[in-house]
């Protein structure tokens, strides 16, 4: 292990480490633009210049590998002058669009200018080279070539990660410009990441464009609900509105990326939400109160079981629910209602597209969790559907907004066969249009819990902000229903439910929220 000195501090790092990473280890931040830990080293921006003893010239910290006994200084006047010079060069033709630039507030140029620049421009405004602004280059991205600092992160991402190579540099010198080939827009499922890795406002998100200033946003840890991969995300919100999702780095799952489809899943948590409990009387919706609706639903389920036998009551679970909710739902069905009519399906409408990278065919975040908790999938769901279609069910409790791949008409026709359907769901959908009683549920952003990814990695999503409208946490709904059916549960919050799961469910044995931590934990076996 080479030992080197950086700013007088001694640090041991494995052989092959670069100076930039060695410095990071002891908390020294070396400014950088082109360096990105998940991409190859390009060494073209020259922001990371540092002084190394016995080297005649300044060295780029991102591409210089450490040696035993190296003496590095990042804080000398020579370094500061060089960095300011590099910054001045980058800003020569920069449009300084900050008032209208979505990157403002999280921009590498702004941040480093305040730290290392603070110089007066020596260049006349009229002499600036102008390039093409506001170009829709496909995917989720808007390109402003004038703001680009030619760091090549985007080019490397499209070469090394997606392999699609749509962006390239054209021309020379001052006129160098990032662009696509004419008529060949971005064509891959990971374009949104370009806005994240571009250190300036050259590549920005079309979806987030002008929606909100970034300094108003607050962030919480979440998990993408777009597929069973379970990409770790940062959810950005202001009040009870979500504005964007960004990948949260997790080397075991999604590294620093996420797919374009997943990036837009936040919209469901904003739009067409079920906000008040209601019942359907003669086809018309009538707003109901939680206080009377919960006992009513419990009573109807119980009455149906007592009248026709437990075989005439059914529960359909959702792979969009958390492990905690699925566990309570299973116990509610098997212990309180005593029915074996319990199933879910991981299938959804659509083609189930998958690539070998992040996108999985199963479009639900927690199918694996449901299976591990003993809720039958596949054939059991089909059997339950045909039982319902045959008029064999008198009371049905549905979790989720859709019944797997069934269309709105199919769902309506199927649910019409059941005298009483209660739904716990987050959004307007086929089920809420047909159910007799609708219990609005908090969205993923409004509650906490865990999902189990397709490889069996249990990961936490966190509470972001209080539920909108009158929606309630499904755990609260389940505990309340269970207790009205005589369960005597005293669970309060998802943590207490997870403790119970870890105690009794073999795959989760010994796990805790602490052991899952920020990055998740794989189930055993």
């Amino acid at each position, binding site marked *: 292990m080479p030992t080197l000195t950086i700013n007088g501090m001694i640090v041991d790092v494995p052989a092959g480490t670069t100076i930039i990473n060695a410095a990071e280890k002891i908390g020294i931040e070396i400014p950088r633009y082109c360096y990105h830990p998940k991409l190859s080293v390009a060494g073209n921006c020259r922001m990371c210049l540092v002084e190394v003893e016995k080297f005649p010239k300044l060295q780029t910290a991102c591409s210089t590998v450490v040696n035993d006994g190296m003496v590095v200084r990042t804080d000398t006047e020579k370094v500061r002058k060089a960095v300011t010079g590099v910054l001045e060069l980058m800003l020569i033709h920069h449009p300084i*669009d*900050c*008032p*209208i630039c979505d990157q403002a507030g999280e921009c590498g140029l702004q941040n480093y200018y305040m730290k290392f620049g603070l110089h007066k421009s020596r260049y006349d405004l009229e002499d600036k080279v102008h390039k093409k*602004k*506001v170009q829709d280059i496909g995917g989720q991205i808007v390109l402003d070539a004038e703001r680009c600092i030619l760091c090549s992160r985007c080019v490397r991402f499209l070469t090394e990660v997606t392999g699609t190579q749509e962006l390239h540099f054209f021309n020379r010198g001052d006129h160098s410009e990032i662009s696509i080939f004419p008529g060949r827009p971005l064509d891959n499922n990971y374009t949104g990441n370009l806005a994240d890795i571009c250190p300036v406002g050259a590549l920005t998100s079309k979806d987030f464009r*002008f*929606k909100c*200033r970034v300094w*108003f946003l607050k962030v919480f840890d979440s998990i993408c609900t777009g597929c069973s991969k379970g990409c770790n995300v940062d959810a950005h919100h202001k009040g009870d509105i979500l504005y964007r999702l960004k990948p949260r780095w997790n080397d075991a799952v999604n590294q620093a990326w996420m797919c374009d489809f997943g990036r837009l899943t936040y919209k469901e948590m904003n739009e067409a939400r079920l906000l008040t409990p209601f019942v359907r009387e003669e086809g018309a919706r009538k707003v109901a109160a939680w206080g009377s609706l919960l006992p009513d639903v419990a009573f109807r389920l119980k009455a149906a079981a007592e009248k026709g036998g437990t075989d005439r009551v059914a529960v359909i679970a959702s792979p969009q629910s958390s492990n905690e909710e699925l566990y309570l739902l299973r116990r509610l069905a098997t212990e309180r209602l005593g029915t074996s009519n319990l199933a879910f399906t991981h299938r959804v409408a659509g083609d189930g597209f998958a690539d070998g990278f992040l996108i999985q065919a199963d479009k639900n975040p927690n199918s694996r969790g449901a299976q591990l908790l003993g809720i039958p999938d596949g054939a059991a769901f089909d059997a339950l559907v045909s039982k319902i279609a045959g008029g064999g069910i008198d009371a049905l409790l549905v979790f989720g907004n859709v019944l797997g791949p069934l269309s709105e008409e199919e769902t309506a026709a199927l649910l019409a066969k059941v005298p009483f359907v209660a739904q716990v769901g987050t959004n307007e959908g086929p089920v809420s249009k047909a159910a007799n009683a609708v219990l609005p549920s908090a969205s993923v952003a409004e509650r906490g819990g865990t999902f189990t990814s397709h490889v069996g990695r249990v990961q936490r999503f966190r509470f972001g902000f209080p539920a909108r409208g009158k929606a309630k946490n499904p755990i609260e709904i389940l505990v309340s229903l269970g207790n009205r059916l005589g369960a005597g549960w005293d669970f309060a919050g998802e943590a207490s439910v997870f403790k119970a799961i870890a105690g009794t469910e073999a795959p989760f044995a010994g796990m805790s929220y602490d052991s899952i931590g920020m990055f998740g934990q794989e189930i055993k076996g």
Partner: protein
Amino acid sequence: MTIGVIKVARPRKMSFPESLYLVEIVKGLGVTMGHMLSNIVRQEGIKTIEYPEVRREMPPRFRGRHRLMKREDGTPRCVACYCCATACPAKCITIVAGESPDPGVEKYPVRFDIDMLRCVFCGMCVEACPCDAIRMDTGWFTPPDDTREKLIFTIDTLLEK
């Protein structure tokens, strides 16, 4: 430790004629009548003005009702950067940004509301604006109105002046 005690002189007890207040009332009425009579005979020295028809000249740095500036083509100069809304201590500026039809402008305010009832007339918004798009140089107070809604000034009202 002893507590410091301050002796406060109690006011002298009023005498009987003083406690009737009569003399003071007559004196006060005298001042009022004096002004009334002098206003009748000497109108040019009159102290009151007939607001809002007549307005007092405000000092040039007076911070009055806001206005939004326009470009030469009449569109708002504001680029919806939210700097004013960020600086505003009363959080009374609401902006919704949109894509401008003019690609040279890019961003413009679809909505720009100032809640005049919450504004504390501090002028931070004017200081913060990078485009000199908002000014408080109208020399106007916020005119009174009879509903709260009317006192949330919209972009159209703010562009008028």
